[in-house]
Structures are given as C-alpha cells and as structure tokens.
C-alpha cells in the first residue's frame, strides 16, 4: 500500500505539471483555435531562464522565477504582436506551423546558450522530504502541487471575475462579436500568449527540480500534455487541469503496476497509456470530457 500511495503522490505531482502545460495550450487554443507547438520550448526556456537568473545572475530564487516569467511572457507577447497578428484569419495549420518555427528558434537558441549538459536550477528545496506513514513526500514536489494549485486558482479567479478574464472568454466565444462590443481582441491574444508563457515557466522549473535535472529534453513534456488537453477538451481550462492530473496518475500507476501485472502489453507501456486513455475517451466523447463541439456553419 505504501507503494501505491508513493506512486499516487508522484503521479499527482507530475500530473500537476501536465495540468499547467495543458493550461498553456488551452488558453491559446481558446483565444485563437491554434495549438501552440512552441509550448514545450517556452517551458524549457522558462526553466533555463530561472537557472540563469538564479545561478549566473545570483538573484534570490523567488526573484529569479519572477524574472524568468517576465522573459517568457515577453517572448510570448512579442511573438503574438510581431508575428501572429499578421496571419490572423489564415488557415489554422499555417499558424500552427509558424509556432513550430518559433519552437525551432527557441530550442536552438537555448541549446546555443546553455549547451546540452545538465545544469543547476538554483532552487532552495534540495533533497529534503517528509515521510508520513512511510511515504516520501519530497518538498520540491509538495511545492509543485501547492504552487500549481495556487496558479490554477489564480487563473480561474482571473478568468471568472476579472475584466480581462471576461474579455478572454468573450473572445474565445466569438471573436468578431467581442471586437464589435469593444473588446481589444489583439490585446487579448497577446494576453493569452503571456499567460501561456507564464504557466510554461512555472511548469518548466518545477519539472527540473530535484530529483530531476535541468537539460533540454524537458521540452518533450509538452508531448505528454497533448493527451491531457484532448482528454479535458481543447477549449476548457478546467478540462486541462482534470486531464493533466489524470494523465499524470495514469502514467505513474501504469509504470508501477503494468510490468508485473500486464506484461503482455509490452515494455514501457506507460509511455502510450495516456494516449490509449485519450483515444478511448474520444471514442465516447469526440470533444473530450469538457470540450464543446464547434458550431458548424453551412
């Protein structure tokens, strides 16, 4: 049973990071029906920026995180204002391709600046942990869960009650109508990219905390958030959270139990377990658990 709780905890912590990444995807998708393929690269950039500010620039860790968030928000906003505004109205996949271009640029820049060797993050949590009932709860992971929930709560309050949160929802519902009633939609798109940059940074550095290391491969986590966003529904932030946590748990529990109990599914089945769950859900609900079927105009 200890093993089960241990896996539950690590799966939940992992799922929280997926939830953040998924939220980044969802916010942008909701505003412009585009999947940002650069989300993983933004996440890596954010984590490296935290490391750079904390280690190379010797900022206190909290400040380093804020500064890194600033950088990623800036990259997101500038990209939206400088590039994406010119292709508004183009086919979705042209825009998706442009985000792939961005991810190539960010990945190569990060690699050029920081190389491929593991790097220190500069976080304050080290390897300390608490052990209730024989289950090890690493502080870094406890902080991950707490912070992620804080960020998610903040986002939902912002989305539900703030003026710009409303503007985001209105733009998501009907872009032209939102423009017509005076919502500055371009600012809203930029805001969505800013939010995506911010949550990517938080997800990124938590992913790189002990016992994990910071290296460029953390950008691959974005791939694991895909089943999460589909599971929840592309345009639903709440769905992103539910999907992210579910995927984290599915992955970790499969990893823990499938090799011994269902070995016929093959080595490393947990890698595809999230996708299998995703496809099964989609067979029943083609727009995910919380997603909305788009209105088809004839």
């Amino acid at each position, binding site marked *: 049973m200890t093993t089960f709780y241990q896996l539950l905890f690590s799966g939940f912590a992992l799922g929280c990071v997926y939830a953040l990444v998924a939220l980044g995807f969802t916010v942008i998708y909701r505003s412009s029906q585009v999947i940002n393929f650069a989300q993983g690269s933004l996440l890596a950039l954010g984590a490296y920026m935290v490391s750079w500010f904390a280690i190379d620039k010797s900022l206190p860790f909290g400040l380093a995180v804020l500064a890194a968030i600033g950088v990623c928000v800036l990259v997101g906003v500038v990209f939206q204002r400088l590039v994406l505004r010119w292709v508004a109205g183009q086919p979705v996949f042209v825009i998706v391709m442009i985000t792939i271009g961005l991810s190539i640029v960010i990945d190569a820049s990060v690699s050029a600046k920081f*190389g491929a060797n593991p790097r220190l993050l500069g976080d304050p949590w080290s390897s300390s942990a608490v052990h209730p009932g024989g289950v090890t709860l690493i502080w870094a992971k406890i902080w991950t869960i707490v912070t992620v929930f804080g960020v998610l709560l903040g986002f939902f309050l912002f989305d539900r009650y703030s003026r710009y949160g409303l503007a985001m929802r209105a733009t998501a519902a009907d872009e032209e109508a939102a423009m017509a009633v005076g919502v500055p939609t371009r600012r809203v798109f930029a805001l969505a990219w800013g939010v995506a940059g911010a949550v990517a940074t938080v997800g990124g550095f938590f992913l790189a905390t002990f016992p994990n290391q910071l290296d460029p491969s953390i950008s691959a986590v974005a791939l694991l958030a895909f089943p999460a966003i589909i599971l929840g529904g592309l345009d639903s932030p709440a769905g992103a959270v539910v999907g992210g946590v579910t995927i984290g748990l599915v992955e970790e529990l499969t990893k823990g139990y499938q090799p011994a109990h269902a070995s016929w599914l*093959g080595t490393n089945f947990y890698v595809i377990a999230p996708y299998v769950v995703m496809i099964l859900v989609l067979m029943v609900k*083609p*727009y995910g658990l919380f997603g909305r079927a788009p209105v088809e105009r*004839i």
Partner: protein
Amino acid sequence: MSSEVRVLGRTVSAAGLIAAGSVVAAAALTVALPFMLNAFWLSTLVFILIYAIAALGLNVLTGYTGQVSLGHAFFLAVGAYTAKVLGGDHQLMALIWIPAAGVVAGLCGLIVGPVALRLRGLYLAIVTIGIVFIGQHIFLNVDSLSGGPQGTAIPSVQIGAGAQCQPSCSVDFSQGTSLGGATIDHNALYYYLSLFILVLGMLFVRNLVRTRTGRALQAVREREVAASLMGINLVRTKLAAFVISSFLAGVGGALFGSYLSFVRPQSWDLILSISFVAMIIVGGIGTVWGPLLGAIFVAGTPTVLNHYADSVPFLQHGSSSGGLSINEFSSIFYGALIILFLVLEPRGVVGLAGRAIALAQRLARGPAIPPSTPLPSQQSA
C-alpha cells in the same frame, strides 16, 4: 535541335514555344542531374524526392480533404517494415515489395481511418499523434517485425531478379550499375526510381482531384455538413483519403528505409510527421506541386544552410565550445525563415511561384500594352 526551333518558330506562338522549350529543358535537366551533382547533393535530392512522395500522400488527406494528420510517420514505418519482411525475410523482388508497402500501409489507413472519422480539426491532429506513439510502442516490442529497439536493416532495391539471369540483367541498387559505359551509382539509381514514382504519384493526384472522388474530397474540406447534405458519403470519402494518403506514405517509407538501409523504431517519430505537415504547408497546401516544393524547402534548407555556414566567420567550428555552432545557427535561421515565409506568403511556395509567374507574364506582355493603360492587377496588389 536548333534548326527545328526556327521551323517551329514560324508556326507556334512565342509564349507556347518558350513554355514547350522550358518543359523540355526542365525534363532534360531533371534526367541529367545525377551526372551534374556530387554525391552529397544527389543524396540530399534523393531524400527530398522520397519525402515528396510521402508528402504527396499527406496532401491528399490534409490538403485536399482537410483532415489534418500528424500520424504520417507511422504509415511510413509500416511501408518500411513491409519492405523488410517481404524483401528481406522473404527475398521477394522490389517490384513486389514497393507496391506491397503501399498496400499494407493503405490497409492500416483503412483500420485507423474509422477511429479518426469521428474527430475533427486539431482533435484529429492530436489523436494521430497518438498513432505515432502507439506505433513506436508496437515496433519497439515486436522484434520479429522491426528488430526491436536495436533496429533492422531494410533491403536495397533489386530489379531484374532471379538467379537465372544474374548478373547481366539484374541491378542491385546498393551496388550501382553501369549503362552504356557510364557508371550509375546507388544514389543515382535511387534518384531515378524515386523520381519515377514521384512523377507517377503526381500524375495520379492531378487526375484524382479532377474526378468525382477528388471533388468529393475537396467538398469535405470546405464544409463537412454541406458535403454530406450534397449526398457525399463522408465515411467513404474520408476513408478513401486516408487510404490514398497511407498508400503513398507506405511507398515513401519503403524507399526511405531502403535508401537509408537501416531503421529503428525511434526513426518514426513525431518530428518526422511534423516535417511532412511542414512540407505541404510551406510548399502550398492542396496543390499538386506543393509537396515537392515543400520537400525541397524543408529537407533542403537546413542542408544548404549547414553546408554554406562553413564559410560564415563568426560561427564556432568543430568541437570547440562557446559561440553559436553551425547547426544551431542554421536551425535558428531555418525556424525564422519558416515564420517569415508563412507570414509573407501563407499559400506557400506555390503561392510565391504563382506570383512570380504572374509577374513574369506581366513583364513578358509589357511591351504589348500601351504605357497609358494601367495594369489590371495593380489595383488588386
């Protein structure tokens, strides 16, 4: 040759002559390329042609039918492993395993298709990502098919098989051959074969889009509900697109594996899939020439950049650390180029070519139009 031109010149219009002339010149150039390029550029070109074959398939599915798939790499893998089983394990000839690779991949498309039919837009795109991962999982675990994590050799193309007539009339593509005293090495052989298959594929797609099925595909792209109201069988149309797409991917995958000679399950990853989407978008979505032009851009640009970045002074060369490496530089440049290109010309290379041709025609027509007449297209520009 030159006297003929003059004879024709009296009867055929200048524009027609130029067009015919450039077609002949282009064909001759295409045939002569292997003798003009060194092995490096030729092998780059072979990869481009093979990619173009597979991209042509994706273009039927995504470009003409509007079903975005990021699972193309899986169907290439199916083609490559079909080649391995039929050509490697069972020693069948290439004339059988190349089309068989397409057929088996097409059948897989038929199986995967119904799953994808329920989904639209980016939901479909992401589910097809799942196909890539599930495919890799299968290939990693079924050693007899794929060699497992270690990978497996894919046979080289052999034409004119049979122990009876060796070696005079059989050609092993990995060995090269000689024809009329000229050596045609393995790169050139793969070049001609891929070119031949690509041309067949392009003709097929060009004809397909003019048929009833082809128009149905495009109707589905424009408006799914409207298409079904028009009496188009959505299921059959989408499945047809999936099957055609997978068939070409399978053929491309068999050639890719054969030319690369060795593949492992990790080769068929999402990045490969994405690069096919990149090809058809950058090339010009829903056009016959788009996949080839896109393959030239996507597979050619980084190669050209890397090749010539050798002479860029501020870059770091070799093993020394610090500074921008050539690959990092060319990656940044390439990524930025994709962004810039699609911002300026979202219709892709084909759109750009269209503009260039329109400009050329305008310039060609220039003297014929009195200077006072405003050019009709100026207003729209």
